[in-house]
């Protein structure tokens, strides 16, 4: 047991950390509200808002009608009034009906009104596969939002980061899309779906302070230092990559982006210039995924340092197939093959 844990820092899984972030913020800021389908009395289908209605009342944590347009549109109006809404979209696959309110409204409000109105909302949504959710409970739509000027996209990979980043997102005065990798809600996942699931307790980042702290938006984390290759990843993939690198004994530098927009370009550039190789791993479909932007940026900035083509390891350009989930998922084999290739190139 680490010092922190001995000193009373509680252990939390990702759901608990996310719940704690909202609890802390609702305690501090009477204008913060949470809302969404089943988030009130029931506390959310993943329990992320459990207890908040009981503690803060029905006008601050409430169930909503099943209309994602309305959830985001109403949150924008509440934000314009002066509240700080944290709406939940039950699955990221269901964010598309709300896209116009997010893209044309939340993301554009500050700009088009010249700061007269703003949209300080944080949209939480579980995303990603690996839970046999089929094509409509598994998608990773983050790439779309990174193309939209005026919205920030944040994806945590540990309980500690989840809480700190969510607090930073809520405190941010711009709209933030906070995507939660649901595969690792209850434990880190190394991609070996056939091995027993682990929970968070053994992971150092499950030590989560009970109170308020922030993990700054726009700052990546170096998960592992290394010299052979830089691997850029986020969310569930951080764990799959780390374990694959470990198993293969590769001296890779693993960077957990944490925020996609704005990106921590300095960390990326410094690392790639050091290693001379860059691999990008995400679960989303390949074409025009965020990996494309990363590849474009890295070759623009590190061209003369690159010793091999930048490799993208991604989900395939198909819907997420139910029965072939593990053939779709970018797991240790796909990452391993790409690593072998990039180190050989």
């Amino acid at each position, binding site marked *: 047991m680490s010092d922190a844990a001995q000193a009373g820092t509680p252990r939390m899984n990702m759901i608990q950390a996310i719940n704690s972030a909202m609890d802390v913020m609702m305690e501090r800021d009477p204008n913060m509200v949470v809302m969404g389908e089943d988030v009130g009395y029931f506390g959310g289908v993943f329990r992320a808002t459990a207890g908040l209605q009981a503690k803060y009342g029905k006008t601050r944590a*409430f169930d909503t*009608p099943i209309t994602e347009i309305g959830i985001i549109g109403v949150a924008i109006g509440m934000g314009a009034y002066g509240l700080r809404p944290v709406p939940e979209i039950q699955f990221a696959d269901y964010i598309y009906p709300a896209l116009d309110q997010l893209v044309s409204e939340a993301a554009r409000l500050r700009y088009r009104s010249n700061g007269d109105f703003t949209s300080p909302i944080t949209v939480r949504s579980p995303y990603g596969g690996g839970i046999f959710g089929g094509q409509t409970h598994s998608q990773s739509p983050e790439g779309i939002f990174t193309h939209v000027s005026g919205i920030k996209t944040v994806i945590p990979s540990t309980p500690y980061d989840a809480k700190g980043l969510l607090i930073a997102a809520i405190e941010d005065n711009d709209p933030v899309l906070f995507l939660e990798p649901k595969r690792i809600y209850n434990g880190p996942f190394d991609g070996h779906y056939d091995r027993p699931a682990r929970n968070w307790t053994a992971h150092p980042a499950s030590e989560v302070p009970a109170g308020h702290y922030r993990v700054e938006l726009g700052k990546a984390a170096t998960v592992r230092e290394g010299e052979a290759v830089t691997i850029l990843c986020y969310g569930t993939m951080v764990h799959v990559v780390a374990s694959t690198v470990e198993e293969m004994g590769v001296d890779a530098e693993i960077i957990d982006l944490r925020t996609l927009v704005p990106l921590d370009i300095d960390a990326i550039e410094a690392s790639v210039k050091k290693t001379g190789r860059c691999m990008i791993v995400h679960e989303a479909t390949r074409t025009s995924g965020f990996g494309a932007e990363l590849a474009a940026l890295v070759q623009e900035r590190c061209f003369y340092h690159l010793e091999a083509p930048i490799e993208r390891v991604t989900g*395939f350009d198909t819907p997420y197939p139910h*029965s072939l989930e593990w053939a779709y998922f970018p797991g240790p*084999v796909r990452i391993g093959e790409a690593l072998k290739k990039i180190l050989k190139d």
Partner: protein
Amino acid sequence: MDAPRANLPPLSLHVPEPKFRPGDEADFSDVDVPPAGSARRPDTADKADSFHELAYTLIRVLDDAGQAVGPWNPRLDADALRKMLRSMALTRAFDERMFRAQRQGKTSFYMKSTGEEAVSVAATMAMASDDMCFPSYRQQGILLTRGYPLVDMMNQIYSNSADPLQGRQLPIMYSSKDYGFFSISGNLTTQYPQAVGWAMASAAKGDTRIAATWCGDGSTAEGDFHSAMIFATVYKAPVILNVVNNQWAISSFSGFAGAEATTFAARAIGYGIAGLRVDGNDALAVYAATQWAAERARTNQGPTLIEHFTYRTEGHSTSDDPTAYRSAGEPTAWPLGDPIRRLKDHLVAIGEWDEERQAAMDRECAEEVKRAQKEAEKNGILGHGMHQPFETMFEGVFEDIPWHLKEQQQQMIAERKAAGI
């Protein structure tokens, strides 16, 4: 935010709350249940604004004594009634078994329609077999009524090597063009405007087939619902728009879809289309309302919205436990009873059925389902290796496989070879 003006009372936000929560005793005595036979039946050529009251009552045919009464009595012959009863019983048996299969780890997910069997079975019987259905995920009764093979439904649920959808879809998201059953979507209510579009196309072509669609009470809040209503009213589309008001949307009671303020059938009035509110646990009422709406559609009178007032007896899906958010007593306290029992009582009351035949039928249904399950499991269960070949993953994204998917297909094959799997 400025200080509230002192001379005005402060505003307050109304947040709906269901009448009963876990621990409460469920008491539905304030639910208004009009007597069977009391609603009038307008001519199918009547104007939609001449029978608004039908959106606020309950069309009921079966009375407490098990008799079919009033102008909506469809006067079906006993064979038809028995077929209806059997399809409902089969649906329930199927649900029981597949729910259990999920619990046994044979698949990832299942959703029952317990207590709502009449809504899909009786409606299907009132339509022509080539009319097109755009269901949500809780109308398995349509397929079972139309005689779609149980084994194929199970193959789909198991995502196995014989799955007609090749393991691509979540369990229960069936699709069968041949049986007039549109591919179920995971995204709520998207099927609503699609059904209207199908019906408009049929009308534009001078066809005779109509469309029907179903969504839940909670799902009516989606923008798609509205767009469907608008298109339906503007072009007088020959479509039946069913709202299955089972009063719950996962953990949210229907108040969060607006049920505190009015009925779902009343939505129809807002668009100037015909609206009926039906006892959804009364198979004959469902049949009669559907038949009436179908006749309107077929005679170019346009769309009808039917609210089926029913109750979701069980959890939302295999993923939730309803006693965490509602009174455990609700399912039994619910006053409109069980649709299967009510139709059975009717058949018994008219001397066309008895307890023995009922028991035999139940056994038969259970057997049929069990046999199908055995058959289906020969093709594999989820996650046990018997699935479609890996390469198929890249088929059907487009009609032809473009180069980038072919490359990815090769990558996947190479990957599996490299890993020795």
